[in-house]
């Protein structure tokens, strides 16, 4: 769930699409975002109009610390106790969710294509002792996110194609702090602007890009399947124009051709950890590195 609209609404992918507000009727919506500044010039961002009561065009990172302090000053002793109680419940729920996520990860742990939980756990092992930041694909449920700069929301409206260039741009922003940037890169997204890799090579931008390669524009595969089923026809045809196979793309070869370190395609989960460590070494030397991992659909 990346954008404002998707956070406060729910939409079902059916023949007649219906959406439902997730907020209470009288809730006041306020957005603080630099998105509102993207409506002209070179970089533009258009999507569903967000109905808010107050739209503040501002830098979130600069705004939030003082907003949090201001909110804290309004908290009475009573409210503080309520928050502490709630905090305890959240902590317990989090511990339980983590335990559940670990159990869930055991299913298909040794499968090939490699499960996304396995990919996430292997990657966490490589980054957990570093000052890391995710610049694409979010952080896994098994990861411990403690700092505000460790996650980055994806492009809004489930759009495809912004992931790779965004990760390179974000890694550039992190570079001066010496952070270890990591991105989970979808194969469909890769197909739009692979030239971003050359940019990273040219400007020596360190970034570990790990591919969640399900050999499809998988969001579209599922959408077409939903529609085929509802029309009761063509249910074996959902892959036409949506799967990226025959031939399979050799992403590591493309990446090497752009001048960075790359490994893959990796299909055996046992090969994944060592490949990630070798790629991480290249990133520590100040380069971008890519590991192509052939994965389960989701």
């Amino acid at each position, binding site marked *: 769930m990346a954008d404002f609209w998707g956070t406060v609404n729910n939409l079902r992918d059916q023949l007649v699409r219906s959406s439902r507000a997730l907020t209470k009727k009288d809730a006041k919506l306020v957005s603080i975002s630099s998105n509102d500044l993207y409506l002209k010039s070179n970089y533009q961002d258009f999507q569903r109009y967000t109905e808010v009561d107050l739209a503040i065009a501002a830098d979130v990172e600069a705004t939030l610390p003082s907003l949090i302090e201001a909110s804290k000053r309004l908290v009475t002793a009573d409210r503080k106790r309520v928050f502490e109680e709630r905090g305890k419940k959240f902590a317990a729920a989090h511990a339980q969710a983590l335990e559940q996520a670990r159990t869930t990860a055991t299913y298909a742990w040794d499968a090939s294509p490699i499960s996304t939980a396995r990919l996430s756990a292997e990657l966490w092992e490589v980054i957990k002792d570093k000052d890391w930041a995710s610049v694409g694909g979010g952080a896994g449920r098994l990861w411990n996110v403690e700092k505000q700069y460790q996650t980055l929301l994806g492009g809004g409206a489930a*759009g495809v194609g912004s992931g790779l260039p965004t990760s390179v741009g974000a890694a550039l922003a992190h570079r001066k702090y010496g952070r270890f940037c990591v991105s989970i890169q979808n194969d469909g997204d890769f197909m*739009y602007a692979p030239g971003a890799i050359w940019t990273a090579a040219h400007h020596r931008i360190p970034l570990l890009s790990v591919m969640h390669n399900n050999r499809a524009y998988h969001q*579209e595969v599922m959408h077409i399947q939903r529609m085929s089923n509802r029309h009761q026809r063509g249910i074996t045809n959902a892959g036409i124009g949506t799967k990226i196979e025959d031939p399979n793309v050799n992403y590591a070869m493309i990446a090497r051709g752009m001048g960075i370190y790359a490994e893959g395609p990796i299909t055996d989960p046992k090969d994944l950890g060592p490949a990630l460590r070798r790629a991480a070494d290249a990133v520590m030397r100040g380069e971008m590195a890519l590991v192509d991992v052939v994965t389960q659909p989701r």
Partner: protein
Amino acid sequence: MRFILSFLFVVTVIPALKAQTPAPATSTTPAGNAQNGKKIFSNYGCYQCHGFEAQGGAGARLAPRPIAFTAFSKYVRQPTGEMPPYTSRVVSDKELADIYAFLQSIPQPPPASSIPLLSK
């Protein structure tokens, strides 16, 4: 920066954490061909939302220990949530039995405590 807005919607992802009720092998469970079931699971697109090993993904985990066959076939024919329906016009009863046999053939995974990356 957006290159393509493929769809202006965000699809709700149902966590694959639903409690699984183990299915007793009752007389209502028809015999099926697990090998063919595995093939259909892929060809008819079940894998897209449930994973190749039925471990779950955008949709629920279906195996090991799938829900009882009657509940299973009822759900596939008339799902109540985000899952699209598969009517008997597109997936025959025989094919459903084969898919079910495939789900029953999937073994229980090892406990998280036996996997180093998951036990800390």
